[in-house]
């Protein structure tokens, strides 16, 4: 990137403030906008709409598991083909079309310019293209449900030869559309990632040094770098797989000299860093919220930063722990078992730091704080259960059982949902200029957290009892119908129904508060970071009173020299003023 180009884009962005009051047409304003906040909202609401699809699919297949053969209300009978397609769609949608757009794209776009004190991204039109590609990828994915043969049902990991040949998968077109949608989605996030990194490097407010950048911004940047470094091999693999599907090449076909395990390496070389791509932004959100609502400086800012970088680097060396029993050289498992357990250290350290931050605080249990604390409490269980799977000897038994499902939902649900709810409830006043209803926020919180645990603790038990994954009817397995096992499946499904029902509370609260909520001040939480110095909601160009100067780090809460328990980054030191 030439810096001249960046400046030209930036100058263009400076004009925003001048024509902000012009009435723009609907298309220009909503579909063709280059404003980072509008693009963030587009990503956020598209991600939420896709979450409805992800939620509906899990409803349909969990009903089939609890009550095999029943006609599921709103869906009908779930056949074996349907079951595989539902499971595949649930996994791919929740990771690629919910966690990624909400945590990285929506929050990155919304927060980065506001938190580093500039008026827009350095490449606003690239940003617009990124969203448009993402929207197109969503449409392609949805279209794949309606082609002959139906949606792809080979799991979100899409292992060949099953995914490579229509005669095996029976969904020739569905498989290719799925793959194409995923590739488009990656292209969208590559564009977004370039934009995030360049913006933070070039457009920070005067005075904002690297260690004055809020942790959530750092986390999104590290995540973007991880994504960009890991996605290349998978895109190469996806092209090869597409050729195998449509042109009959044999990259992954042993009969033609290919190797199906190669795909697994390419997929997981991306797939495992991907876990941290979504984890780190969620960790960043939690850092912002627990400091504000415990009125504490973040415990060991630099340690958090270094552990995040360490986690990111290590995450490139753990991928084959997904493949211990996949037919790789068994000696390789030793290496990957070691690296996998080592990654527990930086991640655990990050959690310790957050717990340490609470010490000596003045903790206010607002809705966003409840979500942030729940993230830590629940993620801990996801973390420790990962040890069972990273330890090669124990993984022989647990691999591809419901124990794995429960484990990664204890990481992914906190990331994708608890983290997103924390972010939405925390930044809601800034985004919409209104306060969200606290009472209904707390109802939704408890209505989500309690059933979440009630779904996945039974799944740990089922996994320990040998329930293997992606089976649409356990009645074919006498050992898996023994005492109480079906009861656990029914219990988990009922808990899921409760969890889904409580999401209605969230949606109603969200839209009611957007239109009827109490008006929010610029800085309702008395927070330090720059976005709270802009009006709520920030106008086009973000800082109408002029771009801010930065005088200190983001977490100077309860400083002993001050009356106030917060100290905005933009407030000049008394001595200098």
């Amino acid at each position, binding site marked *: 990137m030439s810096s001249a180009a960046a400046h030209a884009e930036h100058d263009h962005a400076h004009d925003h403030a001048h024509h902000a009051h012009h009435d723009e047409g609907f298309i220009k304003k909503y579909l063709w906008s280059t404003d980072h906040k509008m693009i963030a909202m587009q990503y956020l609401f598209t991600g939420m709409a896709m979450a409805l699809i992800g939620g509906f699919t899990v409803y349909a297949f969990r009903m089939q598991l609890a009550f095999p053969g029943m006609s599921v209300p709103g869906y009908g009978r779930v056949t074996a083909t349907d079951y595989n397609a539902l499971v595949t769609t649930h996994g791919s949608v929740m990771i690629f079309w919910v966690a990624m757009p909400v945590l990285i794209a929506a929050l990155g776009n919304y927060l980065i310019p506001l938190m580093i004190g500039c008026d827009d991204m350095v490449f606003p039109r690239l940003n617009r293209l990124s969203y448009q590609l993402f929207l197109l990828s969503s449409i392609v994915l949805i279209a794949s449900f309606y082609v002959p043969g139906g949606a792809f049902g080979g799991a979100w990991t899409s*292992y060949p030869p099953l995914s490579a040949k229509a005669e095996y998968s029976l969904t020739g077109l569905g498989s290719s559309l799925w793959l194409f949608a995923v590739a488009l989605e990656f292209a969208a996030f590559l564009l977004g990632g370039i934009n995030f990194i360049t913006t933070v490097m070039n457009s920070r407010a005067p005075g904002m040094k690297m260690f004055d950048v809020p942790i959530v911004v750092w986390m999104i940047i590290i995540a973007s770098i991880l994504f960009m470094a890991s996605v290349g091999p998978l895109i190469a693999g996806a092209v090869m797989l597409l050729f195998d599907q449509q042109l009959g090449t044999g990259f992954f076909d*042993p009969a033609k000299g290919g190797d199906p395990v190669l795909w697994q390496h390419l997929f997981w070389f991306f797939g495992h860093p991907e876990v941290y791509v979504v984890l780190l932004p969620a960790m960043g959100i939690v850092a912002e919220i627990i400091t504000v609502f415990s009125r504490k400086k973040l415990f060991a800012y630099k340690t958090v930063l270094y552990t995040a970088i360490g986690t990111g680097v290590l995450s490139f060396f753990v991928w084959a722990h997904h493949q211990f029993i996949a037919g790789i050289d068994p000696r390789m498992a030793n290496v990957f078992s070691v690296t996998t357990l080592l990654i527990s250290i930086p991640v655990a350290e990050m959690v310790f730091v957050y717990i340490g931050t609470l010490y000596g605080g003045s903790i206010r249990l607002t809705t966003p704080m409840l979500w942030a604390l729940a993230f830590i409490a629940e993620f801990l269980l996801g973390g420790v259960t990962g040890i069972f799977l990273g330890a090669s000897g124990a993984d*022989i038994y647990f691999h591809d059982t419901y124990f794995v499902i429960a484990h990664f939902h204890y990481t992914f649900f906190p990331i994708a949902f608890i983290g997103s709810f924390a972010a939405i409830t925390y930044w809601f006043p800034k985004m919409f200029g209104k306060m969200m209803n606290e009472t209904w926020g707390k109802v939704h919180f408890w209505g989500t957290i309690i059933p979440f645990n009630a779904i996945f603790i039974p799944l740990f038990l089922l996994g320990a009892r040998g329930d293997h994954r992606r089976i649409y009817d356990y009645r074919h397995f006498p050992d898996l119908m023994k005492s109480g096992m079906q009861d656990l499946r029914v219990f988990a499904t009922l808990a899921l129904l409760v969890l889904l029902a409580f999401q209605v509370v969230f949606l109603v609260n969200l839209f009611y508060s957007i239109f009827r909520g109490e008006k929010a001040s610029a800085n309702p939480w008395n927070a330090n970071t720059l976005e709270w110095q802009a009006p709520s909601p920030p106008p086009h160009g973000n800082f109408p009173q002029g771009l801010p100067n930065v005088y200190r780090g983001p977490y100077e809460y309860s400083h002993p020299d001050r009356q106030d328990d917060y100290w905005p980054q933009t407030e000049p030191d008394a001595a200098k003023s």
Partner: protein
Amino acid sequence: MIDQYVESASTFSGDIDNVIWIILLITGFWFILAEVVFFGLIFKFLAKPGVKAKYVSGEKPHEKRWVTLPHYATLAFDVAIIVLAIKVWHDVKINLPEADSTVRVISQQWAWTFVHPGPDNKLDTPDDISTVDELHVEKDKTYHFELTSRDVLHSFSVPVFRLKQDAIPGRIIKGWFKATQTGQYDIQCTEICGIGHGIMPARIIIETPAQHRIWNQSNAPKVADVTPTTPPTQLGGMP
């Protein structure tokens, strides 16, 4: 712990259960400790009127200690878990003991074919016994299995043995087991293999030596009936 729910029926299943049990104790202890500290801090430091929060940077050595000490403890326990896990892994997956008998396990969409060596205890002879979805083995006898697939990936899983291995078309993957008790148990396919993945169950039947001899004799093809067998099909390009 696992054996309360799923019987332990191979020589290494107990070892795997022990590793799981030890990991549960270690991680369980740390998990509970972390949660207790976490909730303890939340309740201890709930906002009280007039009380200002402490200003702690966490950068000074005596403060950082609270993070670095648990960090070293994590490392120490990680090392212990790795040593245990790798030892079991070697016993199950790397060091194959001398075999008393060998069976061939062939997976396809959506059935298992098991080739037993028959009364002469040799594969690729006319008295081999092929069965579908039913594997007959003898208790206390060390078996090697040769696992392969005819189409897509499958995975050969015998939960009571704590044994699992993916099958790959074009390759023959070897492994071993030795049953320690008789009985009939599930064999699962644990890798998604298409629309019939959920209806690919099989059973393993573990017999006493006497029962197994009878089964062998009553099921072995009569040599006279059998046309000369073709050599075993080479699957794919790998030796």
